[in-house]
């Protein structure tokens, strides 16, 4: 918690609330951090997951692919109170992955002939035109996983994996909230999704609160 302060950039794992780390988010809400730059797939829901930061006015900027599930985000954006940078979902995932694996960006033809072109460089490679999409990293990345060992190796569960393995690599500090923490040696190396080298801290989850938010 000491690493996440006013004005910092915070990248979060999850997709439509599922896979957001709820215990970390609730802790940060309690701490009262503000002026955050949030980076992640979507704006969550007004009262679930990452969306709480937005509906409580604690974010100044959001880099995401989708905000439809959180009407507060749309309203703040229209009112000029929240800056929103949209990336196509797959491009956003690759920008985060690029940041996490030490690349400067990615080349893609997604977004050509659309608003996504604005302000971006184009390059020709093998006769084809691509947009240059810059890599994304953040001061702190927060993720949710099913299991971790004390080295920080992570295993995700079913579709709660989503953007988490990408986000886990792209934080200057990465904090994982997990359902179960086991001693080093208790996880089969075959099963690890995120190697512990990317993870700085592991905390015990108090349980998830994202159940079937769309209903």
């Amino acid at each position: 918690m000491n690493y996440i302060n006013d004005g910092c950039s915070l990248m979060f794992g999850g997709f439509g609330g599922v896979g957001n780390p709820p215990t970390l988010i609730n802790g940060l809400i309690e701490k009262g951090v503000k002026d955050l730059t949030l980076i992640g797939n979507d704006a969550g829901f007004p009262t679930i997951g990452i969306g709480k930061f937005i509906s409580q006015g604690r974010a100044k900027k959001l880099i995401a692919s989708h905000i439809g599930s959180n009407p507060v985000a749309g309203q703040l954006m229209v009112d000029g109170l929240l800056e929103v940078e949209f990336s196509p979902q797959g491009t956003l995932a690759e920008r985060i992955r690029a940041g996490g694996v030490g690349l400067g960006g990615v080349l893609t033809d997604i977004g050509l002939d659309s608003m996504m072109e604005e302000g971006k460089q184009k390059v020709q490679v093998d006769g084809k035109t691509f947009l240059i999409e810059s890599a994304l990293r953040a001061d702190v990345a927060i993720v949710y996983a099913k299991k971790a060992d004390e080295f920080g190796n992570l295993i995700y569960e079913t579709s709660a994996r989503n953007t988490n393995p990408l986000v886990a690599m792209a934080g200057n500090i990465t904090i994982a909230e997990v359902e179960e923490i086991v001693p080093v040696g208790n996880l089969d190396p075959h099963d690890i999704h995120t190697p512990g080298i990317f993870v700085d801290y592991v905390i015990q989850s108090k349980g998830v609160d994202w159940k079937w938010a769309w209903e």
Partner: protein
Amino acid sequence: MGMGVNIRERIAKRAAQEIKDGMMVNLGIGIPSLVANYLASECRVMFHAENGVLGIGKEPEKGKEDPTLCNAAGFPVTTVPGASYFDSAVAFGMIRSGYLDITILGGLEVSEQGDLANWIVPKKRVPGIGGAMELAKKAKKVIVVMNHTNKKGDAKIVKQCRLPLTAKACVNLIITDMAVIEVTEQGLLLKEVMEPYSTEEVIEATEAHLLVPGEVKIVKRKLD
């Protein structure tokens, strides 16, 4: 959507007829998500979701939902034999590399050239782009399901899109409450008219020019 349940189901049912055995398919949010309910029983399809699942099965029974397993719209799902989980970058790798046979998306506007606008109405509605740009541009067949006109009665099938584009010249087939229209190199071809509408009514409700063949199939109110 402002559409009756029956109309939504009818559109979904018609869209389901485009899906053949062995296909890889991605369904968007809304009416597209209903399409899976109307597949022929012998049709084995791998449904793909952008959050990172290939091989989505039926909706789980109430009370048996897995709290981590959902589709891209956040609804609880199950998996079929042969399914796999992966991260979102891999999910989009499948899309961009052209492995999806069909994607079925909603639409705000479709143009005569098959351009699609479906992600933003500036200053009014900002759902965000999600995976629509990748799906629209890279799926082998793009089917748009939508109301033929908007709430004000204005045409959504237009000469040129006025809203910001999702992707250019990407749509192959449009299925609405009034008609089924194929995007061809010659233009928009009226294939089927949904009962109780007439060909003239469809033309009237369409801003874009429609090519009307001598015989247009009438789709009965009750689909088989």
